[in-house]
């Protein structure tokens, strides 16, 4: 069936191009969302105060934030150039997940965080934030190599996209601290005015 296969490949390429062109595009409704993590739900329902209201973050609990930071750090680690954590990428992700446009994405991404943690616990008897860098890479690779359309693959894809946005987006969104991301890739086109706040601008006109 070479013809049929070729067709299927062509379609997947199209979908891929689409998702590159607009993060949050068609792909959101193509790939099934991560399964809700019942453990996390129970936890936040049974002790909402402890898990969430004490969190200094906007969207994520402190535990989730630590896991996201550990994951971002493996996507873009610090070496002779600053890494994702230096660029404040976790802060960016936490802020961005709050926006109304990201509501659907948030429902895919947040359960993926605890899925990552569960996988780590199963493999190494420790949470993702407690294992070594090499072990983190192993867990992330498993997510990356999961079948297309699985919750794990989807989480990894979102993690990459969010990390790149946080690393290389306008600093007013909370990431790309000191423009370290732009320095890494050599981007230096002129910037918005000094007082510019992307998040505000987005929502000034975004509510149609």
């Amino acid at each position, binding site marked *: 069936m070479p013809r049929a296969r070729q067709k299927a490949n*062509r*379609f997947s*390429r*199209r*979908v891929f*191009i*689409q998702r*590159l062109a*607009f*993060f*949050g*595009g*068609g792909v*959101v*409704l*193509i790939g099934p969302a991560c399964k809700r993590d019942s453990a996390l739900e129970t936890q936040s329902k049974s002790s909402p105060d402890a898990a969430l209201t004490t969190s200094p973050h906007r969207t994520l609990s402190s535990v989730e934030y630590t896991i996201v930071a550990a994951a971002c750090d*493996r*996507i*873009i*680690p610090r*070496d002779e*150039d600053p*890494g994702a954590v230096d660029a404040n990428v976790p802060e960016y992700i936490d802020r961005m997940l709050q926006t109304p*446009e990201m509501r*659907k994405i948030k429902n895919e991404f947040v359960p993926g965080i605890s899925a990552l943690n569960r996988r780590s616990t199963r493999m190494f008897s420790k949470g993702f934030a407690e294992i070594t860098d090499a072990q983190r*890479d192993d867990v*992330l690779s498993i997510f*990356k*190599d999961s079948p*297309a359309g699985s919750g794990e*693959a989807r989480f*990894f*894809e979102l993690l*990459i*996209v969010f990390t*790149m*946005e946080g*690393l*290389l*987006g*306008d600093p*007013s*969104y909370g990431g790309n601290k000191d423009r370290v*991301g*732009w320095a*890494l*890739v*050599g*981007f230096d*086109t*002129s910037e*918005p*005015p000094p007082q*510019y706040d*992307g998040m505000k*601008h*987005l929502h000034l*006109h*975004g509510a*149609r």
Partner: protein
Amino acid sequence: MALAPVDVCIVGSGAGGAPMALQLGRAGFKVVVLEKGAHYRKEDFVHDEILNSRRNFFMPLPWDEPHLVRYSANDKYRRTNTAWTANCVGGGTVHMSGYFYRLKPIDFRMRSELGAVPGANVADWPIRYEELAPFYDLAEEELGVSGAVVPHPFAEPRKKPYPLPPLDEHPISKELDIACRKLRYHPLPTARGIISQAYRGRAACAYCALCGSYGCEVDAKSGTNSSVIPAAIATGNVEIRPRSMAQSVEVDSQGKAKSVVYLDANGVAQEQPAKVIVVSCTAVESARLLLNSTSSRFPKGLANNNGLVGKNLVFSSFGESRATFRIAKRRESWPWLSDRAPFVQRSLQDFYVMPDNRHGFRKGGTLGFMWTHPNPIFAAVRIAGSGKAAVFGKELKDRLREYRDSKILQFETYGEFLPTPGTQVTVDSSVKDKYGIPVAAITVERHPIDFKMTKFLVERGEEVLKAMEPDKLERLSTEGETTILQHGTCRFGNDPSTSVLDKNCRAHEVSNLYVVDGSFMPSSGGVPTTLTIAANSFRVADSLVRSMKRGN
């Protein structure tokens, strides 16, 4: 209760709607333009990739206002934001790159000069290039086009130079010329809808490199928002009503169009009566509006008693390859390589029409050369790869550093997209957008000749890039379609049984209804079509103004 009647109500303010508004306003007619999006000013346009390219500043979110898309009538539809252009005053001309080519005489006579193509509904246009040519001149003047007219074996006839001299080029353009000539191809400078000098109160281009997918913060890009719309408002006869989402065009008991029902900025339904109604919301969205405008006179949708509204949808055939040149390696041979000049401005039209069918197609298209878009997130996500092929950690970081040391020259193709019986727009009443209006459902069934043709164009483009001895050459696509270039869904023609509009873009079935976006075009041509849509709108306005002055 209906609002006060006006002479003309235009739905949409892009390349099609804006020229109509300007010419009708100049002629003294009262015009209201309904635009579903916001009226951004140049201060709203900032260099923020997340805002402009990755959220809903320009395009709606696919879960708020989806386009359903499938690549075969047997597939399931998927909810996407494919085939939207910017939702704001100026429409797609706000975030275009502004590659302003004209069509060529052959584009108007494909059927009679090149013959029928089995499996494709190819038709001649009811007008000739010569009838549109004066309006190309006018559109170029009104919008502002920069370019150089050079003698060229494939050039379309033109009487005047471009209104503005060409924009500055990167030194790579000369190398590209050498490579093309070595292969006996004929490189020509690409004209741009970007002004190279101050023009009619607008500032010249600042060479910021962020044209496509951004609005221009100095009004140098010749979107209708920067050129035609301000001129239309200045006539005192044109009101632009942003955040007004048209729901239906209503008809009277005689079957004439009488009003447009729309949701205003507060979501309240309003009815705008007018003597003439002009629809110009893109080929996909105009078809949707007409198909959603059902009545006892038009049970299948307005002007659709012959069932042709939404049929014959054509996009533009897309192919792309990229050549990477490492900066450090060429510090001595090409010391100018890291120059920031954003424009390459070269095209090849040597394969626009083939002399015979030896390669399996007669009608080809254009190769446009350019630097890759500088958006860093877009670039980095692609560099990271996807699925199992994705990389992260040191490998990803090394690739990003390699990108920093690279200049990437690409071409894209603007190829003929053959109309097939399956490629069309319908509405799906079971899926509604956030306004509660049934959405457009797009089926794309490509003609195999399109792929053959695009592959041929891509191979020719790669010959040129290879002759420049790049460090890497990458083929990205030979089977794509550019869905922001859309046409054909209300084809114009002389025969009411095979077309929706007459040669003046008036509906055969509704004597006071016009459609002036890309919908009228039976074929896509081998170039981006923004300038053609604007020129045609000036042409239609010319005939409409004369007919309204006669009192028809």
